[in-house]
Protein backbone atom coordinates (compact mmCIF):
# COMPACT_ATOMS: atom_id res chain seq x y z
CA UNK A 1 0.00 0.00 0.00
CA UNK A 2 1.49 3.35 -0.96
CA UNK A 3 2.09 5.55 2.03
CA UNK A 4 2.91 9.14 1.36
CA UNK A 5 3.63 11.32 4.39
CA UNK A 6 0.26 12.98 3.82
CA UNK A 7 -1.58 9.76 4.47
CA UNK A 8 0.11 9.10 7.75
CA UNK A 9 -0.23 12.41 9.55
CA UNK A 10 -1.95 14.68 7.05
CA UNK A 11 -5.24 12.80 7.13
CA UNK A 12 -5.79 13.76 10.74
CA UNK A 13 -5.06 17.37 9.95
CA UNK A 14 -7.39 17.29 6.94
CA UNK A 15 -10.20 15.72 8.92
CA UNK A 16 -9.71 18.17 11.78
CA UNK A 17 -9.97 21.07 9.33
CA UNK A 18 -13.00 19.47 7.70
CA UNK A 19 -14.74 19.05 11.04
CA UNK A 20 -14.07 22.73 11.62
CA UNK A 21 -16.13 23.47 8.51
CA UNK A 22 -13.49 23.50 5.75
CA UNK A 23 -15.26 21.92 2.78
CA UNK A 24 -12.23 21.72 0.53
CA UNK A 25 -10.36 19.84 3.25
CA UNK A 26 -13.28 17.43 3.58
CA UNK A 27 -13.35 16.78 -0.15
CA UNK A 28 -9.62 16.15 -0.12
CA UNK A 29 -9.95 13.88 2.90
CA UNK A 30 -12.63 11.75 1.22
CA UNK A 31 -10.63 11.59 -2.01
CA UNK A 32 -7.47 10.57 -0.14
CA UNK A 33 -9.16 7.87 1.87
CA UNK A 34 -10.84 6.36 -1.17
CA UNK A 35 -7.35 5.76 -2.56
CA UNK A 36 -6.07 4.48 0.76
CA UNK A 37 -9.03 2.15 1.32
CA UNK A 38 -9.23 0.67 -2.15
CA UNK A 39 -6.69 -2.15 -1.64
CA UNK A 40 -8.31 -3.00 1.69
CA UNK A 41 -11.78 -3.12 0.19
CA UNK A 42 -10.48 -5.19 -2.72
CA UNK A 43 -9.37 -7.94 -0.37
CA UNK A 44 -12.91 -8.14 0.98
CA UNK A 45 -14.70 -8.42 -2.33
CA UNK A 46 -14.77 -12.01 -3.41
CA UNK A 47 -15.19 -11.40 -7.09
CA UNK A 48 -12.77 -8.49 -7.14
CA UNK A 49 -14.80 -7.06 -9.99
CA UNK A 50 -14.36 -3.29 -10.27
CA UNK A 51 -18.07 -2.62 -9.75
CA UNK A 52 -18.19 -4.67 -6.53
CA UNK A 53 -15.09 -2.92 -5.25
CA UNK A 54 -16.64 0.43 -6.11
CA UNK A 55 -19.90 -0.49 -4.37
CA UNK A 56 -18.19 -1.52 -1.17
CA UNK A 57 -15.86 1.46 -1.26
CA UNK A 58 -18.86 3.75 -1.52
CA UNK A 59 -20.59 2.00 1.35
CA UNK A 60 -17.48 2.55 3.47
CA UNK A 61 -17.29 6.22 2.45
CA UNK A 62 -20.93 6.77 3.41
CA UNK A 63 -20.30 5.08 6.78
CA UNK A 64 -17.21 7.22 7.39
CA UNK A 65 -19.31 10.26 6.56
CA UNK A 66 -22.22 9.27 8.79
CA UNK A 67 -19.91 8.39 11.67
CA UNK A 68 -17.31 11.10 11.21
CA UNK A 69 -18.19 12.52 14.62
CA UNK A 70 -16.80 9.38 16.28
CA UNK A 71 -13.26 10.39 15.38
CA UNK A 72 -11.58 12.15 18.26
CA UNK A 73 -9.37 15.03 17.29
CA UNK A 74 -5.72 14.19 17.77
CA UNK A 75 -6.38 10.45 17.59
CA UNK A 76 -4.66 8.60 14.71
CA UNK A 77 -7.03 8.38 11.74
CA UNK A 78 -5.90 5.04 10.32
CA UNK A 79 -7.01 2.61 13.06
CA UNK A 80 -10.36 4.39 13.24
CA UNK A 81 -10.76 4.36 9.49
CA UNK A 82 -9.85 0.70 9.10
CA UNK A 83 -12.18 -0.23 11.95
CA UNK A 84 -15.07 1.35 10.04
CA UNK A 85 -13.94 -0.18 6.74
CA UNK A 86 -13.65 -3.60 8.32
CA UNK A 87 -17.06 -3.36 9.97
CA UNK A 88 -18.71 -2.43 6.69
CA UNK A 89 -16.75 -5.04 4.73
CA UNK A 90 -17.75 -7.85 7.07
CA UNK A 91 -21.32 -6.61 6.92
CA UNK A 92 -21.35 -6.61 3.12
CA UNK A 93 -19.63 -9.99 3.04
CA UNK A 94 -22.28 -11.52 5.28
CA UNK A 95 -25.11 -9.97 3.33
CA UNK A 96 -23.75 -11.36 0.09
CA UNK A 97 -23.32 -14.81 1.59
CA UNK A 98 -26.92 -14.81 2.79
CA UNK A 99 -28.33 -13.68 -0.51
CA UNK A 100 -25.90 -15.70 -2.56
CA UNK A 101 -24.85 -14.69 -6.03
CA UNK A 102 -25.13 -16.34 -9.38
CA UNK A 103 -22.57 -16.29 -12.13
CA UNK A 104 -24.50 -14.84 -15.02
CA UNK A 105 -21.84 -15.74 -17.57
CA UNK A 106 -23.81 -18.78 -18.75
CA UNK A 107 -26.97 -16.76 -19.12
CA UNK A 108 -25.43 -14.08 -21.30
CA UNK A 109 -27.47 -15.17 -24.28
CA UNK A 110 -30.83 -15.00 -22.56
CA UNK A 111 -30.32 -11.86 -20.49
CA UNK A 112 -31.19 -8.44 -21.83
CA UNK A 113 -28.40 -6.02 -22.48
CA UNK A 114 -28.85 -3.54 -19.63
CA UNK A 115 -27.56 -0.67 -21.75
CA UNK A 116 -30.34 -0.99 -24.31
CA UNK A 117 -33.32 -1.94 -22.17
CA UNK A 118 -34.80 0.43 -19.60
CA UNK A 119 -33.78 -1.37 -16.43
CA UNK A 120 -34.99 -1.50 -12.89
CA UNK A 121 -32.41 0.96 -11.60
CA UNK A 122 -33.34 3.62 -14.13
CA UNK A 123 -36.98 3.03 -13.34
CA UNK A 124 -36.35 3.34 -9.60
CA UNK A 125 -34.36 6.52 -10.04
CA UNK A 126 -37.12 8.04 -12.14
CA UNK A 127 -39.68 7.03 -9.56
CA UNK A 128 -37.57 8.42 -6.71
CA UNK A 129 -36.96 11.74 -8.43
CA UNK A 130 -40.61 11.82 -9.49
CA UNK A 131 -41.66 11.73 -5.85
CA UNK A 132 -40.14 15.18 -5.39
CA UNK A 133 -41.58 18.45 -6.53
CA UNK A 134 -40.50 21.93 -7.57
CA UNK A 135 -36.91 23.09 -7.10
CA UNK A 136 -35.85 19.93 -5.27
CA UNK A 137 -36.88 17.84 -8.23
CA UNK A 138 -35.01 20.08 -10.68
CA UNK A 139 -31.86 20.11 -8.56
CA UNK A 140 -31.75 16.40 -7.71
CA UNK A 141 -32.51 15.51 -11.30
CA UNK A 142 -29.76 17.84 -12.61
CA UNK A 143 -27.14 16.51 -10.21
CA UNK A 144 -27.96 12.82 -9.73
CA UNK A 145 -29.49 11.94 -13.09
CA UNK A 146 -27.85 14.29 -15.56
CA UNK A 147 -24.59 14.42 -13.64
CA UNK A 148 -24.14 18.19 -13.51
CA UNK A 149 -21.95 19.75 -10.85
CA UNK A 150 -23.35 21.92 -8.11
CA UNK A 151 -21.89 24.98 -9.79
CA UNK A 152 -23.49 24.21 -13.16
CA UNK A 153 -26.80 23.52 -11.51
CA UNK A 154 -26.62 26.80 -9.63
CA UNK A 155 -26.00 28.71 -12.85
CA UNK A 156 -28.71 26.88 -14.72
CA UNK A 157 -31.43 27.67 -12.19
CA UNK A 158 -30.05 31.03 -11.14
CA UNK A 159 -29.51 29.87 -7.56
CA UNK A 160 -26.59 30.27 -5.18
CA UNK A 161 -24.38 27.22 -4.67
CA UNK A 162 -25.47 27.05 -1.06
CA UNK A 163 -29.13 27.00 -2.04
CA UNK A 164 -28.43 24.20 -4.53
CA UNK A 165 -26.71 22.15 -1.84
CA UNK A 166 -29.56 22.60 0.56
CA UNK A 167 -32.18 21.72 -2.08
CA UNK A 168 -30.11 18.70 -3.16
CA UNK A 169 -29.67 17.50 0.36
CA UNK A 170 -33.34 18.00 1.29
CA UNK A 171 -34.37 16.21 -1.86
CA UNK A 172 -32.15 13.23 -1.08
CA UNK A 173 -33.39 13.13 2.52
CA UNK A 174 -36.97 13.19 1.35
CA UNK A 175 -36.29 10.35 -1.10
CA UNK A 176 -34.61 8.40 1.68
CA UNK A 177 -37.67 8.92 3.86
CA UNK A 178 -40.14 8.00 1.16
CA UNK A 179 -38.29 4.90 0.09
CA UNK A 180 -37.35 3.77 3.52
CA UNK A 181 -33.61 3.17 3.36
CA UNK A 182 -31.54 5.26 5.73
Amino acid sequence: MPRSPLRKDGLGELLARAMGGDEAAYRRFLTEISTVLKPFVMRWTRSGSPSDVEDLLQEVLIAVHQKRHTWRQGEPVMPWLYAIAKYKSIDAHRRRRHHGSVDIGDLAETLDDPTTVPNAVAYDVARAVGSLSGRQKDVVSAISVEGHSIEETAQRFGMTKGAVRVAFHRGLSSIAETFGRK
Partner: protein
Amino acid sequence: MKTDQLIDSLVADHAARPRPALLSVWPLAALAMLIDLALFLPTLGPRPDLLSAIGTWRFDAKLLVTGLLAAVSILLLQRLRRPQPARAISRSLKWLLLPALLLALLVGAELLMVPADLWRARAMGTNVVVCLPAITAMGLPLIPLLSEALRRGAPSRPTLSGAVAGLAAGSIAALFYASHCTSDSPLFIASWYGLAIGGLALAGALWGRFVLRW
Protein backbone atom coordinates in the same frame (compact mmCIF):
# COMPACT_ATOMS: atom_id res chain seq x y z
CA MET B 1 -23.20 6.53 -8.97
CA LYS B 2 -19.52 7.21 -9.50
CA THR B 3 -17.39 7.60 -6.39
CA ASP B 4 -16.53 11.18 -7.36
CA GLN B 5 -20.20 12.05 -7.46
CA LEU B 6 -20.74 10.39 -4.14
CA ILE B 7 -17.95 12.47 -2.66
CA ASP B 8 -19.65 15.59 -4.07
CA SER B 9 -22.88 14.72 -2.32
CA LEU B 10 -21.13 13.84 0.93
CA VAL B 11 -19.30 17.17 0.92
CA ALA B 12 -22.60 18.93 0.21
CA ASP B 13 -24.25 17.05 3.04
CA HIS B 14 -21.35 17.91 5.35
CA ALA B 15 -21.96 21.59 4.70
CA ALA B 16 -25.74 21.49 4.78
CA ARG B 17 -26.42 19.52 7.89
CA PRO B 18 -25.18 20.01 11.45
CA ARG B 19 -22.77 17.26 12.41
CA PRO B 20 -24.16 14.55 14.67
CA ALA B 21 -22.64 14.50 18.12
CA LEU B 22 -21.34 11.73 20.32
CA LEU B 23 -23.30 11.11 23.49
CA SER B 24 -21.38 10.36 26.66
CA VAL B 25 -22.56 7.35 28.62
CA TRP B 26 -22.07 9.02 32.03
CA PRO B 27 -25.18 11.23 32.05
CA LEU B 28 -27.16 8.23 30.79
CA ALA B 29 -25.78 6.13 33.65
CA ALA B 30 -26.78 8.85 36.13
CA LEU B 31 -30.27 8.90 34.65
CA ALA B 32 -30.38 5.10 34.81
CA MET B 33 -29.61 5.23 38.54
CA LEU B 34 -32.34 7.81 39.13
CA ILE B 35 -34.85 5.66 37.26
CA ASP B 36 -33.94 2.58 39.27
CA LEU B 37 -34.03 4.58 42.49
CA ALA B 38 -37.54 5.74 41.60
CA LEU B 39 -38.56 2.15 40.84
CA PHE B 40 -36.85 0.71 43.91
CA LEU B 41 -37.77 3.03 46.80
CA PRO B 42 -41.58 2.80 46.63
CA THR B 43 -41.60 -0.96 45.91
CA LEU B 44 -38.84 -2.94 47.62
CA GLY B 45 -36.89 -0.30 49.48
CA PRO B 46 -33.74 -0.91 51.54
CA ARG B 47 -33.82 -3.57 54.23
CA PRO B 48 -34.81 -2.32 57.72
CA ASP B 49 -31.46 -3.21 59.28
CA LEU B 50 -29.48 -1.40 56.57
CA LEU B 51 -27.30 0.57 58.99
CA SER B 52 -26.11 -2.41 60.97
CA ALA B 53 -25.68 -4.44 57.75
CA ILE B 54 -23.23 -1.86 56.44
CA GLY B 55 -20.88 -2.92 59.21
CA THR B 56 -20.66 -6.55 58.01
CA TRP B 57 -18.09 -7.60 55.41
CA ARG B 58 -20.42 -9.77 53.36
CA PHE B 59 -22.87 -6.92 52.84
CA ASP B 60 -20.09 -4.48 51.95
CA ALA B 61 -18.49 -7.01 49.64
CA LYS B 62 -21.73 -7.48 47.74
CA LEU B 63 -22.07 -3.74 47.19
CA LEU B 64 -18.42 -3.58 46.18
CA VAL B 65 -18.68 -6.36 43.58
CA THR B 66 -21.85 -5.04 41.95
CA GLY B 67 -20.58 -1.46 42.12
CA LEU B 68 -17.26 -2.46 40.57
CA LEU B 69 -19.00 -4.35 37.77
CA ALA B 70 -21.23 -1.33 37.15
CA ALA B 71 -18.26 1.04 37.01
CA VAL B 72 -16.18 -1.20 34.74
CA SER B 73 -19.02 -1.89 32.32
CA ILE B 74 -20.00 1.78 32.08
CA LEU B 75 -16.38 2.63 31.39
CA LEU B 76 -16.28 -0.07 28.73
CA LEU B 77 -19.44 1.28 27.11
CA GLN B 78 -17.82 4.68 26.89
CA ARG B 79 -14.97 3.10 24.91
CA LEU B 80 -17.08 0.80 22.77
CA ARG B 81 -18.97 3.78 21.32
CA ARG B 82 -16.17 4.45 18.82
CA PRO B 83 -14.94 2.24 16.00
CA GLN B 84 -11.82 0.46 17.19
CA PRO B 85 -9.41 -2.21 16.03
CA ALA B 86 -10.16 -5.68 17.43
CA ARG B 87 -6.99 -5.62 19.50
CA ALA B 88 -8.00 -2.44 21.34
CA ILE B 89 -11.39 -3.96 22.12
CA SER B 90 -10.00 -7.15 23.61
CA ARG B 91 -7.56 -5.09 25.65
CA SER B 92 -10.45 -3.05 27.08
CA LEU B 93 -12.47 -6.16 27.83
CA LYS B 94 -9.77 -7.39 30.20
CA TRP B 95 -11.04 -4.85 32.73
CA LEU B 96 -13.99 -7.18 33.32
CA LEU B 97 -11.54 -9.58 34.97
CA LEU B 98 -11.37 -7.18 37.91
CA PRO B 99 -14.91 -7.72 39.26
CA ALA B 100 -14.74 -11.39 38.21
CA LEU B 101 -11.55 -11.94 40.20
CA LEU B 102 -12.93 -10.09 43.20
CA LEU B 103 -16.04 -12.28 43.15
CA ALA B 104 -13.94 -15.44 42.81
CA LEU B 105 -11.87 -14.33 45.79
CA LEU B 106 -14.97 -13.69 47.90
CA VAL B 107 -16.48 -17.04 46.94
CA GLY B 108 -13.20 -18.74 47.87
CA ALA B 109 -13.17 -16.97 51.25
CA GLU B 110 -16.78 -17.96 51.94
CA LEU B 111 -16.10 -21.59 51.06
CA LEU B 112 -13.19 -21.62 53.51
CA MET B 113 -15.10 -19.93 56.32
CA VAL B 114 -18.39 -21.78 56.09
CA PRO B 115 -18.64 -25.54 56.74
CA ALA B 116 -19.46 -27.55 53.62
CA ASP B 117 -22.88 -28.69 54.82
CA LEU B 118 -24.04 -25.06 54.94
CA TRP B 119 -22.88 -24.15 51.41
CA ARG B 120 -26.12 -25.17 49.83
CA ALA B 121 -28.26 -23.18 52.27
CA ARG B 122 -26.06 -20.12 51.80
CA ALA B 123 -26.25 -20.33 48.04
CA MET B 124 -30.04 -20.71 48.03
CA GLY B 125 -30.50 -17.76 50.39
CA THR B 126 -33.97 -16.74 51.48
CA ASN B 127 -35.59 -14.86 48.62
CA VAL B 128 -34.54 -16.12 45.22
CA VAL B 129 -38.10 -15.63 43.96
CA VAL B 130 -37.76 -11.89 44.51
CA CYS B 131 -34.12 -11.54 43.52
CA LEU B 132 -34.30 -12.73 39.92
CA PRO B 133 -37.44 -10.86 38.80
CA ALA B 134 -36.47 -7.70 40.69
CA ILE B 135 -33.02 -7.36 39.11
CA THR B 136 -34.42 -8.27 35.70
CA ALA B 137 -37.27 -5.77 35.96
CA MET B 138 -35.04 -2.93 37.13
CA GLY B 139 -32.36 -3.80 34.59
CA LEU B 140 -34.37 -4.28 31.40
CA PRO B 141 -35.49 -0.67 30.85
CA LEU B 142 -31.90 0.50 31.32
CA ILE B 143 -30.62 -1.44 28.30
CA PRO B 144 -32.14 0.82 25.62
CA LEU B 145 -31.29 3.86 27.71
CA LEU B 146 -27.59 3.03 28.11
CA SER B 147 -27.40 1.77 24.53
CA GLU B 148 -28.33 5.19 23.26
CA ALA B 149 -24.68 6.20 23.67
CA LEU B 150 -23.71 3.25 21.45
CA ARG B 151 -26.43 3.94 18.91
CA ARG B 152 -25.24 7.50 18.43
CA GLY B 153 -21.68 6.25 18.06
CA ALA B 154 -20.36 3.48 15.87
CA PRO B 155 -19.56 0.34 17.86
CA SER B 156 -17.35 -2.07 15.90
CA ARG B 157 -18.94 -4.97 17.77
CA PRO B 158 -22.65 -4.17 18.19
CA THR B 159 -23.62 -7.51 19.74
CA LEU B 160 -20.76 -7.45 22.22
CA SER B 161 -21.41 -3.79 23.03
CA GLY B 162 -25.07 -4.57 23.62
CA ALA B 163 -24.04 -7.36 26.01
CA VAL B 164 -21.87 -4.89 27.94
CA ALA B 165 -24.86 -2.52 28.10
CA GLY B 166 -26.78 -5.46 29.60
CA LEU B 167 -24.00 -5.99 32.16
CA ALA B 168 -24.10 -2.30 33.09
CA ALA B 169 -27.90 -2.33 33.33
CA GLY B 170 -27.87 -5.52 35.40
CA SER B 171 -25.19 -4.37 37.81
CA ILE B 172 -26.87 -1.00 38.40
CA ALA B 173 -30.13 -2.83 39.14
CA ALA B 174 -28.29 -5.33 41.35
CA LEU B 175 -26.60 -2.53 43.29
CA PHE B 176 -30.01 -1.21 44.38
CA TYR B 177 -31.46 -4.63 44.91
CA ALA B 178 -28.46 -5.53 47.10
CA SER B 179 -29.53 -2.95 49.68
CA HIS B 180 -32.91 -4.68 49.97
CA CYS B 181 -31.82 -8.30 49.97
CA THR B 182 -30.89 -10.01 53.24
CA SER B 183 -28.93 -12.85 51.61
CA ASP B 184 -25.39 -11.56 51.71
CA SER B 185 -23.31 -14.67 51.10
CA PRO B 186 -20.94 -14.43 48.12
CA LEU B 187 -22.30 -17.87 47.15
CA PHE B 188 -25.75 -16.35 46.76
CA ILE B 189 -24.38 -13.33 44.88
CA ALA B 190 -22.37 -15.47 42.48
CA SER B 191 -25.31 -17.75 41.68
CA TRP B 192 -28.40 -15.55 41.60
CA TYR B 193 -27.10 -12.08 40.90
CA GLY B 194 -24.85 -13.79 38.36
CA LEU B 195 -27.82 -15.48 36.72
CA ALA B 196 -29.93 -12.31 36.64
CA ILE B 197 -27.11 -10.13 35.30
CA GLY B 198 -26.14 -12.85 32.82
CA GLY B 199 -29.72 -12.92 31.53
CA LEU B 200 -29.63 -9.16 31.07
CA ALA B 201 -26.30 -9.40 29.25
CA LEU B 202 -27.96 -11.86 26.88
CA ALA B 203 -30.91 -9.51 26.38
CA GLY B 204 -28.42 -6.72 25.73
CA ALA B 205 -26.59 -8.85 23.18
CA LEU B 206 -29.85 -9.41 21.31
CA TRP B 207 -30.61 -5.70 21.49
CA GLY B 208 -27.17 -5.00 20.10
CA ARG B 209 -27.53 -7.56 17.37
CA PHE B 210 -30.77 -6.09 16.08
CA VAL B 211 -30.76 -2.43 17.07
CA LEU B 212 -27.16 -1.29 17.32
CA ARG B 213 -25.96 -2.25 13.85
CA TRP B 214 -25.16 0.65 11.61
